[in-house]
């Protein structure tokens, strides 16, 4: 059956062209999905290989050709890894450091940002610029004097060097929080002041509850940075039992001939808290990064 295009009604023509457009769009989507899935597979390959290895038998590690998905997954490997390496201990140490740093950041950062965002006083801008410029100073430059200081104070091999700085505010968080507080209308402060609230009452009852998005960014970043930190713990800690998970894993890798099937399981376990926090907080994380990306 042949249809003369000239005899098609206008609405029929319109329908055909939309159908064509839709088909082209679908094809375009299919190509993009194919590209994205292929890329995602490439990117996830190292993690997939780690997971796959963690479920193998020792003799399967060197098998040729390698098995991509173990036919007989050894879930017991994880129990064995926890028995062989003090993983639980290391993760607990990391958790202690994370909590202590989060508490420090939450106590210090809002107060300092409040000073910058809400009050006028001599040298405020100088102090603000000084703080911003400290964001550019690479941390390594401070390590030797701080190490010597902590050594003199007998704080080497304690958690203090890894915790204390958070209680005095980190420039990046102060900056982020100050910017956020500036977007909160001052009328709210004034209303509270008329109701008899003092400056600290205004901070804790009015401003901090409104800062929840910025506070979430502080918590999430503090978690990630503390959990992943490596250079400072290897310098300030010596006792094996006090190592956080990052140092603990590196220590075992460097010192013993490792059983890779157990060790890959241990590494996978070590990143699970990060992945959980990341999945639940990615909106805030990306928002926080975007905020520095645009304003910074």
């Amino acid at each position, binding site marked *: 059956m042949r249809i003369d295009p000239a005899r098609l009604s206008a609405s029929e023509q319109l329908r055909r062209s939309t159908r064509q457009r839709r088909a082209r769009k679908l094809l375009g989507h299919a190509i993009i999905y194919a590209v994205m899935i292929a890329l995602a597979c490439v990117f996830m390959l190292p993690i997939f290989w780690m997971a796959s290895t963690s479920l193998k038998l020792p003799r399967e590690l060197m098998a040729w050709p390698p098995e991509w998905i173990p036919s007989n997954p050894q879930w017991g490997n994880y129990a064995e890894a926890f028995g062989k390496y003090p993983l639980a201990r290391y993760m607990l140490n990391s958790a202690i450091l994370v909590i202590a740093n989060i508490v420090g950041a939450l106590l*210090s950062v809002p107060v300092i940002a409040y000073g910058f965002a809400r009050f006028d006083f001599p040298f405020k801008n100088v102090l603000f610029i000084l703080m911003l410029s400290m964001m550019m100073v*690479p941390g*390594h430059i401070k390590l*030797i004097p701080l190490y010597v200081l902590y050594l003199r104070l007998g704080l080497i091999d304690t958690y203090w060097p890894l915790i204390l*700085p958070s209680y005095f505010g980190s420039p990046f968080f102060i900056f982020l929080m100050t910017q956020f507080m500036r977007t909160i209308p001052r009328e709210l402060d004034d209303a509270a002041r008329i109701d008899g609230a003092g400056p600290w009452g205004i901070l804790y009852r009015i401003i901090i509850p409104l800062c929840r998005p910025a506070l979430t960014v502080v918590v999430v970043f503090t978690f990630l940075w503390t959990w*992943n930190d490596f250079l400072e713990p290897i310098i300030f800690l010596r006792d094996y039992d006090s190592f956080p998970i990052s140092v603990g894993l590196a220590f075992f890798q460097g010192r013993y001939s490792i059983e890779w099937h157990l060790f890959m399981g241990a590494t996978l376990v070590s990143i699970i808290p990060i*992945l959980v926090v990341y999945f639940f907080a990615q909106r805030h994380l*990306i928002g926080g990064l975007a905020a520095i*990306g645009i304003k910074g």
Partner: protein
Amino acid sequence: MTTQERRDAKTGYLALSPWMVGFVVFYAFPIIATIYFSFNEWTLAEPPTWVGLDNYVRMFTRDPLFVSSLRATTLFVIISLPTKLVLGLMLALLLNLKIPGMNAFRTIFFIPAVISGVAVSLMWIWFLNPDTGVVNTLLSYFGIRGPLWFWDLHWALPSVAIMSIWKVGGAAIIYLAGLQNIPAHLYEAAEIDGASKWSRFWRITLPLLTPTLFFQLIIELIDAFKIFTEAYVITHGGPLKSTYFFLYYFYEEAFRNANMGYASALALFLLVVILSATVFVVRTSKGWVYYEN
């Protein structure tokens, strides 16, 4: 000053006091002390002895390790930085396509950027294992004999760079935020004027993205110079110092050999390199960074 102003100033300084203490203890003191130590010889066992410029003379004239660590670090920056900037942008353009389910891809590509350097290093030791690793296995399917990666003099540094490029999702996410800030009406106007996709990218997207590119360039630059964990965990600086990165050299001098004076000079040198690279980028930025208004 009125009473109110005075009261404000008092509250303001009180609020800032933790930071001011922190600034003195954790920033000003260590930075000044590092400068002072760099003119001393000091092994912690005895008090420091003033040696003037000796540390710097040694560094610039008779320290082969200084040269090789500087070379390794510079090479790493040159390989990884541009690659990451370009690939990050390409990935961000893909992730910015308005297609259902894109959020899931964003989540996936960002994962490598949030995992700790130690976990990533351990994962990649096994991933690039010359005998049983995935990459060499895949290559063998095509009849290619893969290199020894971290254990090969010429491949070790590129291997570390590849690892760092794997974290490109972190850059892509920041680009993405920049892309989403470009007002849609600009594209609509260009489309009405009949501009092709290609010219829309060069005339609208790229110029408006230059502030993000600029920010990203500085962040990645500072980060690349500070590469450390991979050398510590995977290569120990080898083979033949090919991955003996500057910060790793500093770490060994300071905390393994206890040469606090010389290590301070190294630390300062790295600071100067990073700061001058940053200043250079900022200086040139006026020529290529486009700010609206």
